[in-house]
């Protein structure tokens, strides 16, 4: 677990290294693009990374043990598999906040005084971490309870797997013990995260002496989403012209060719067709659930006293276990998988909202607005929500591929997508056993998912259409000055 955290931290650091460097040298205005690689990395399913690592590093290269759990060197591969996507996610969130920190007056003052960029960067990170801490906490718990597939691939006797097996075998004592342990862990981690946040920015929170972490200006609309979008659309459009269900067991696991541009799966079905047709099922459901989760996360996040304990408890439950619970309550209907995933998907968003809100409430401009006689509704509508919504929405987009994968994970309970539905998560799961013999069969859907992630994140900043490259520029408000006072862009 600690190792996975280290990997996650390293990944996160790598993700925001560029912003940090630019920020430290006060050249953030040059910043463009970026972020899509992180989004792609965050969209990579853990089990895919895990099986690729096990086969390539463990079996073929023989550098590290491919399975088991007996000592430090056994930790490396699972830690990588778990830490890479999580680190990319956290890094992307941090990267989202950093420009705001660098635009704060202290940074300007530090630069004026000639304080080295390194120190400024350190302080900027310190400034942003409290907003992420709850999510870091969630990640720690998720790592323990939800890493079932990775535990399976590396044969690690983890708590998540034990609990899940107990739930399936209806072994109540073990299930109770496991869930209790997870809830306790969640509570402790939650408390620690809160304590750490208090230590980091406590006094500032109390005195309402923070500045808003708004970006100095809205993110520059970019062309990259067009690129990703076109690519994705092209694949989907091409796929739609083909039959996703046509089986030809004789053409099993064919490598890409003219007849099958993305190769075939274990039953000889055309992968391009399956990806194309699966796009709708996957996108429709995942987007709906993400939107619902965003709404629920925001609403509950606005009520930290009510949602705090709820966040800690719900987070302790791995999604698959939640699926079992929902199925137990609501029966295995068509809406059950969506309900189950939505029941856990709001948690990180609510935690994020609460953390940002807490900081935002303590900013000087809120105090000023209050002083001018604004009531609570006005504050919420005009100041707080506009400040909190964009980063949380970007966070929700970043988690979109994760939602799609969580839906698939429910498949084995008989919930979620059922074969031969070409849902993307299901494609990944079906083809995973063949990852070594037919890498394209998993790479193709994984790339599609990664593209989706990158598209979602880059498009959040707006799209710059190639025809009128400067059309949006005029609408941008004047940067630095306005931002330091904290007006929303």
């Amino acid at each position, binding site marked *: 677990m600690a190792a996975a955290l280290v990997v996650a931290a390293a990944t996160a650091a790598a993700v925001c290294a560029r912003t940090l460097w630019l920020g430290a040298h006060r050249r953030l205005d040059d910043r463009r693009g970026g972020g899509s690689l992180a989004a792609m990395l965050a969209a990579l399913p853990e089990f895919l990374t895990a099986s690729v690592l096990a086969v390539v590093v463990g079996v073929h290269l023989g550098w590290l043990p491919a*399975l*088991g759990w007996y000592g430090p060197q056994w930790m490396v591969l699972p830690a990588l598999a778990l830490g890479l996507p999580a680190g990319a996610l956290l890094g992307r969130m941090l990267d989202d906040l950093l420009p705001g920190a660098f635009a704060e007056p202290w940074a300007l003052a530090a630069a004026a005084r000639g304080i080295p960029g390194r120190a400024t960067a350190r302080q900027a990170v310190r400034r942003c971490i409290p907003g992420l801490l709850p999510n870091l906490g969630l990640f720690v718990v998720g790592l323990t309870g939800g890493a079932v597939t990775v535990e399976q*691939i590396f044969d690690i006797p983890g708590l998540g797997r034990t609990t899940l*097996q107990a739930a399936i075998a209806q072994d109540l004592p073990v299930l109770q*013990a496991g869930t209790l342990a997870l809830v306790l862990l969640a509570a402790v981690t939650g408390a620690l995260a809160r304590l750490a946040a208090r230590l980091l920015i406590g006094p500032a929170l109390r005195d309402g002496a923070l500045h808003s972490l708004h970006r100095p200006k809205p993110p520059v609309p970019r062309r990259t989403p067009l690129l990703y979008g076109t690519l994705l659309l092209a694949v989907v459009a091409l796929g739609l012209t083909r039959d996703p269900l046509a089986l030809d*067991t004789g053409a099993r696991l064919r490598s890409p060719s003219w007849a099958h541009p993305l190769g075939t799966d274990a*039953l000889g079905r055309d992968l391009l067709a399956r990806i194309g047709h699966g796009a709708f099922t996957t996108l429709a459901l995942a987007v709906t659930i993400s939107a619902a989760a965003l709404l629920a996360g925001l609403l509950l996040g606005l009520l930290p006293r009510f949602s705090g304990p709820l966040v800690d408890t719900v987070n302790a439950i791995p999604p698959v276990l939640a699926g079992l619970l929902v199925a137990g309550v609501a029966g295995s209907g068509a809406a059950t998988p969506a309900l189950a995933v939505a029941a856990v998907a709001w948690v990180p968003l609510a935690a994020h909202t609460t953390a940002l809100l807490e900081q935002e409430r303590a900013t000087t401009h809120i105090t000023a607005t209050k002083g001018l006689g604004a009531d609570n509704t006005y504050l919420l509508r005009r100041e707080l929500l506009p400040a909190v919504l964009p980063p949380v929405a970007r966070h929700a987009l970043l988690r979109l591929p994760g939602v799609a994968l969580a839906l698939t994970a429910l498949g084995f309970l008989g919930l979620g997508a059922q*074969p031969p539905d070409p849902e993307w998560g299901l494609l990944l799961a079906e083809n995973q056993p063949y990852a070594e013999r037919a890498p394209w069969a998993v790479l193709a859907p994984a790339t599609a998912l990664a593209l989706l992630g990158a598209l979602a994140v880059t498009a959040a900043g707006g799209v710059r259409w190639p025809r009128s490259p400067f059309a949006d520029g005029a609408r941008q408000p004047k940067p630095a000055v306005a931002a330091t006072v904290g007006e929303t862009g």
Partner: protein
Amino acid sequence: MRPPRRRRVVAGLLLAPVLTGCFASNGETSDGKSADGSRLRVALAFPPAENFSPYGADATLLSRLGVTEGLTKLDANGVAAPALAESWTRENDRNWLFTLREATFQDGTDVTPATVAAALTEATEAEPVTAALSGIELTAKAKDDRQVRVTTEDPDPALPLRLTSPGLAILSAKAYGGKRVNPVGTATGPFEVTKVTGTTAATLDRFDGYWGGRAQASGIDAKFIADGSARTNALRTDQVDMAEAVPVSQAPTLDKGARRETATTRTTSLLLNTRTGAFKDPKLRAAAREAVDGSVLAKDVYEGYADAGVGIFGPAVTWAAGKRVEPTGRARAADADGTSITIATYDNRPELPEVAQVLQQQLQKAGFEVKLEVREYSRLESDALAGKFDAIVGARNSLLDTGDPVSIMASDFTCDGSYNLALLCDKKVDQAVAAAAKESDTVKRQQAAMNAEAAILGTDATVPLVHQKIITGVADSVQGVILDPYERTLVGTGTRR
């Protein structure tokens, strides 16, 4: 099945930090090779689910590792052969006299008629009753100092076959002392369990007092790795010497020499719900049977590691081929005409969802509208037995529980059957099975069993798809692995590396 609850909660709690933070202990207890024979490292597919209780699914684990034995065992031809019992005679319809050989339990006590009788009596009182005894009333009493008399309520000509079941293993008196039956150090096989690490590993040492001679390996380090790819990877990275049940998808990643395939008595079949839904109509069942082609499955889904379905008993049941009877009274196929059906299957055996998808296509071509339902097995069984699906694709080892071909047909295809997934209740079938159950002569019984098989196939309640071959991964250095078509043994006295 009756766990001491409080202790397990506490154990679970105590275990939690261990599982989250620390490492499992490495199963290696002794230093690899010694003059006394080296230890074998084995990766098994199914982790113990019931604390190694001999009455449930874990019984096979114990017999596979050479820990437990019964009075009799199955030989290669599917006939009962001597094990702890040297010989036996049938006194009359209901009484059998078993003569024990001189043997000792792993705790040092002798195998006596009294302990054997006590062990069998314990098995009859187990809750739920072990599969081999379902529907059977049995009493065992010591006769003199070498013999045990087993009496059945109803005549049971297959009793010696029944006693081959891993669920009827003989353990010493010490095993039955606690709240649950404990096979650790109380069995009679060539290896004894010395340590169990939860559901992840078990350590076994050679039992020097084994009546059949000393085993060549000095012990076994068994790991339970449920994930097929992980199990195969364990063999490929030389972490184990043998890996059981390599999935078809992983087989090509092993060297040719490491892949040992055995035809097993496990048959994958399409079971049609004869009680409710579309397949209540025998004509539609016939249509489904005609639409399905098992040879495609054997060739492509199982990549040749299977034979196309011929009956309930496949080629691994060696005597069956010569005695097979053509099914009679089959209905004439009707036009499916868009009848919509649901086929359920489980993903614990990774090939089954693929099989179901191929079947879906085959049936769609014949005019059915097919919906699939894939779940984890434990979430499927109760709905399946309640008749919620029109058809089920399942893999069943036809001789695993009792070794008796008749009893599996009785449990799976008769009105009173306890595992009747096809929900079949057919007078002719019941009569044929009952007739076979009465036969005591081996040859006659086998013939009667094949007649019953024909009667069952005649109803089209089951469509045999393929007879699976099991792939065992064996490292080059290992010799004497037992490749058992009944999947009951894996390691024997001659297995070594």
